[in-house]
C-alpha cells in the first residue's frame, strides 16, 4: 500500500514534466489543425478556442483538474475522447507485450541455461553469437527480414495488420512475426543474463550439496541453480515489460498494428497535447505497477527477500 502511495508523487512529477516538455518544444497544434492554406488569423482563433493562449500554469491546473475527475480530454484533431482511443489500442499493445515477453523468456532462458551447462563448448559459442546478433540488430531489420522470409517467400504468415481474437489462429498468426521481432533484442539480453548468473550459481556450495545427495543433473540445474539465477532476469523483464506496455513504435509501424506506440507517435507529430499527456502518464503508471509486481515476484523466487 505504501509503495502504491509512493507512485502518486512519481505520476504527478511525470505529468508536470510531460506538460512542460510538450508545451515548450517548437510546433503549434493550432497550425497543424488549420492546415497549410489557413490564414494566420484562423490559426490564432483556433489557438484561442483551445485555450493555448492562456498562461502555462493556468493550462496545467485545468488539465490536472480534469485528470482528477478521470477526464483525459479529447484529441485536438479527431475530437474523440482520448480514453476511448486508448481503450481501443491498449489490448493490441498488451497482447504484443505479453507475447513478446513470453517468447523472449522461453527462448532466452532456455538458451542461457544450455549455454551455461555446456560452457565453452560449440553450442555455447553458437548461442552467444546468436544472442549478440539479436542484441545488435535494429528492430526494423529483424522485422523486415522476418516479413520477407515468412510472409513473402514462405507465405506462412500475414505481412501485417490484426485478425480475429488472440486465442484463435486467425488472431494469433498476426501476432507471431511482431512478437518475434520485438523479442529479438530481449532474447539476446536474457540469454546472456541467464548464462552469467547460472555460471555463478553452478559454482555454489548448495549445487555441490544437491549433486552430492544424488539428485539428477536436470533437477540440480532447473530446481536449484536456475531458480536462484532468475533474479536478474526477472528484474530485466519487469523493466522491459513495463516499457513495452507504453507501446512499441517501430514494431507497430512495420506490422501496421494499431497499438499505443503508433498512436503516441502520430500524436507527437500532430502536437496533439491531450493524447501525448495521457499516453505518457499511463505508460508511467504501467511501469510503476509492473515493477511493483516484480518486487512481489522477488520474494517468491527468493524467500529471504521480505517487504515490510
Amino acid at each position, binding site marked *: 500500500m505504501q509503495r502504491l502511495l509512493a507512485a502518486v508523487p512519481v505520476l504527478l512529477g511525470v505529468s508536470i514534466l510531460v506538460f512542460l516538455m510538450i508545451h515548450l518544444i*517548437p510546433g503549434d497544434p493550432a497550425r*497543424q489543425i488549420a492546415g497549410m492554406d489557413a490564414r494566420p488569423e484562423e490559426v490564432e482563433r483556433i489557438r484561442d478556442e483551445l485555450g493555448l493562449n492562456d498562461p502555462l500554469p493556468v493550462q496545467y491546473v485545468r488539465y490536472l483538474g480534469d485528470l482528477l475527475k478521470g477526464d483525459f480530454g479529447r484529441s485536438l484533431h479527431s475530437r474523440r475522447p482520448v480514453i476511448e482511443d486508448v481503450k481501443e489500442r491498449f489490448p493490441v499493445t498488451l497482447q504484443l507485450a505479453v507475447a513478446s515477453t513470453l517468447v523472449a523468456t522461453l527462448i532466452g532462458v532456455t538458451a542461457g541455461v544450455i549455454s551455461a551447462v555446456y560452457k565453452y563448448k560449440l553450442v555455447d559459442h553458437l548461442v552467444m553469437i546468436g544472442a549478440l546478433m539479436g542484441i545488435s540488430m535494429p528492430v526494423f531489420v529483424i522485422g523486415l527480414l522476418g516479413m520477407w522470409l515468412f510472409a513473402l517467400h514462405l507465405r506462412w504468415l500475414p*505481412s501485417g*495488420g490484426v485478425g480475429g481474437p488472440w486465442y484463435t489462429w486467425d488472431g494469433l498468426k498476426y501476432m507471431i512475426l511482431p512478437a518475434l521481432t520485438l523479442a529479438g533484442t530481449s532474447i539476446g539480453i536474457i540469454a546472456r543474463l541467464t548464462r552469467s548468473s547460472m555460471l555463478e550459481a553452478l559454482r555454489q556450495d548448495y549445487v555441490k550439496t544437491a549433486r552430492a545427495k544424488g539428485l539428477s543433473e536436470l533437477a540440480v540445474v532447473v530446481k536449484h541453480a536456475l531458480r536462484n539465477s532468475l533474479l536478474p532476469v526477472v528484474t530485466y523483464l519487469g523493466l522491459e515489460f513495463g516499457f513495452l506496455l507504453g507501446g512499441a513504435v517501430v514494431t507497430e509501424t512495420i506490422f501496421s498494428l494499431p497499438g499505443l506506440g503508433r498512436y503516441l507517435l502520430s500524436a507527437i507529430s500532430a502536437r496533439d497535447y491531450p493524447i501525448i499527456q495521457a499516453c505518457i502518464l499511463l505508460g508511467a503508471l504501467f511501469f510503476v505497477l509492473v515493477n511493483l509486481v516484480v518486487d512481489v515476484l522477488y520474494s517468491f523466487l527468493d524467500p529471504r527477500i521480505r517487504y515490510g
Partner: protein
Amino acid sequence: MAHVRRTTGILVLVTVLVGLLGAAAVQAAGEPVRGGTVVIATNRIPTNLYPGRSTGLPDIALNMLIYDALVITDDKGQVHPALAHSWETSEDGLVWTFYLRDDVYFHSGRKFTAHDVKFHFDRWQTEFPTRAKINALDRTEVVDDYTVRFYLKYPTLVFLNNISQSEWGYGGIPDSEAVKQWGEDYGVVPESISGTGPYRVVSWTRDQQVVLERYDRYTWGPAFYNNQGPAYVDRIVYRSIPEDAARSTALELGEIDIDIAVSPRDARRFENMRGVSLLTQSRVSANHIGFNHWKPVFQDVRVRRAFVHAINQQDIVDFVWNGYAEPVCGFWHPSVDGSTPCEEIRPFMAEYNPAKANQLLDEAGWRRSGSGIRTKDGQPLQVTMYVYSEVQEQIALVAQAQLREVGVDVRIRSMEYAAWTDALANAEHDMYYVDGSHSTADFAYWFTEAALPYPNGTKWVDPETERLYQITQQTVNPAERTAAFQAIEKLFIEQAVMIPMPHHNWIVGVRDRVHGLTFHPIHGVYKLLDIWVDR
C-alpha cells in the same frame, strides 16, 4: 487517353498526364460485375470524418466516398452538378442560388433538403478550422426545401470552386439530424456518420481500417462517371499501412488490391511483376525550394536567379524520384487554370546553366575563395535549407551538391513537420523545400502579405503580386482571373521568388483483378463508382 513510355526493353508503364490528357483508367476487361471487396491501402490514418473539420488527406479521401456536395469537379477541372442539379448567380455576382435534387436520401434514410445545406454551411463558417475557404460567404438562406441561396460579401469566382466537393471535400453535406444527435462525436463514432455518398461506413478500427459498404439507394452520381450508382463492389476496405515496404509486400501478396502511395523506391519492384500494374500520373504539385527574402543574400535577384540556374532538375527526377516525376516548366502545374504554356514561359526561366550561375554570382560580388566557397565582404556564401521528410532530404542533398559546384555552401536541416512550420513562421531558415498539391493556383496566397508569418515562408511581399492576387480573388470574369494568374507566374519566374521543382508522380499499384479504376489528379480514387473486381 494514355500514352505509353518504355523505361526498359521489357516493361511498359502507363503514364497519364492528367489535365492534359484526361483521367487514367485501368483497362476495363469486359462487362462490370457486381459484388466483391476492394482493399485500398495508404500510408496515413483518418482522424475525423466530418467534412471540413479535418485537413488530413485520408479523411478527405474517405469523405469523397461517404458524402456528396452541391457540385463536383471532374479531373479536368470542369464543374458538374451533384446534389444541386442547377444554379445561377445574380448580375452583381453576390447572390448564388442552387436548385437541389429532390430524390436524395442520407444513409440514415432521411431525405436530403436545403435545411441540411444551411446547417452545414452555418457550422463550417463559424466552427471549423477550414472556414477560410468560405470567407466570401455572408449568410445562407433556405428558400424552400429544395432551393438554397448564398449571399456573398464580395463577388468571387473562387466561391463555386471552394464549395465543390473537389476542394478537399469540405463542402460534403452531412445529415444535420445525425450531427445534432451525436454532437462532438459526429464523424468520430462510426454509427454517427451519415452522408449521401455512394458508400456508407460500416466499421472503423482506429489506426487500422475503415470498412465501407455500397449504399444501395445511390443513383445520383456525377455525370462524368459511366455508372451513376449504385456502385458495383459490395465493400471498400480502406486500410492504413504506414511502412512503405510493408505496403508493397501486402500488394505483392494480394492482401491489398490497391496501394495508392507506392514509393518511387518500391515502384521498380512492380514494374515487371505479374498480377500488379502500376498507374502513374503527375501530381498537381507546387513543389519548390523557397528563398527567405528577408535574408540579405536573397534580396539580390541575380543571386536568386543564379541559384535557379545551378539546379539540374533532371538529376532530381532521375536519382530521387527514380524517373517518376517531370521537370517543371514555369511554376503552376500545366493542368492548373492560369498556367502559361511552356514555350511561352520558357524564355523567362533560369534554366540549368552552371556557367550562367557562376557569372551572375560574380556580378553580384560573390567571389570564389580558396576553399571554392564564394565570399563577399569576408562573409562566406553559406545558406541553410530546412526540410521535413526523407525524400525532401534526398532532394536537398542533390541540390546541395549542385550548388556546391557554383561555390555555394548549403547546410541541410532536417526536422519534424510541426517544428518546420514553426521555423518557417519565425523566419529561421534561409531556404526551405515544400511539397503539396493544389487544385487551383489560388495558393498564390502563400506569397502575399496576409500569409505572413506562415505559410508565407518566402516572406515575399510585393505590391504587384498583391494587386494581381486581389484580381484573381475578386473578379467575376474568368478570362481576367486566368490572365492575372499568368501574370503572377511570370513575375515569380522572372524575379526567381523560388526554385520551382519537379512535379512528382502519384504512383498507384493495382492488382489485375481490379477494373474500372479512374484516378483524380488531386483526390486519387475519388468516388469509385466505376470500379469492379473479378469474383
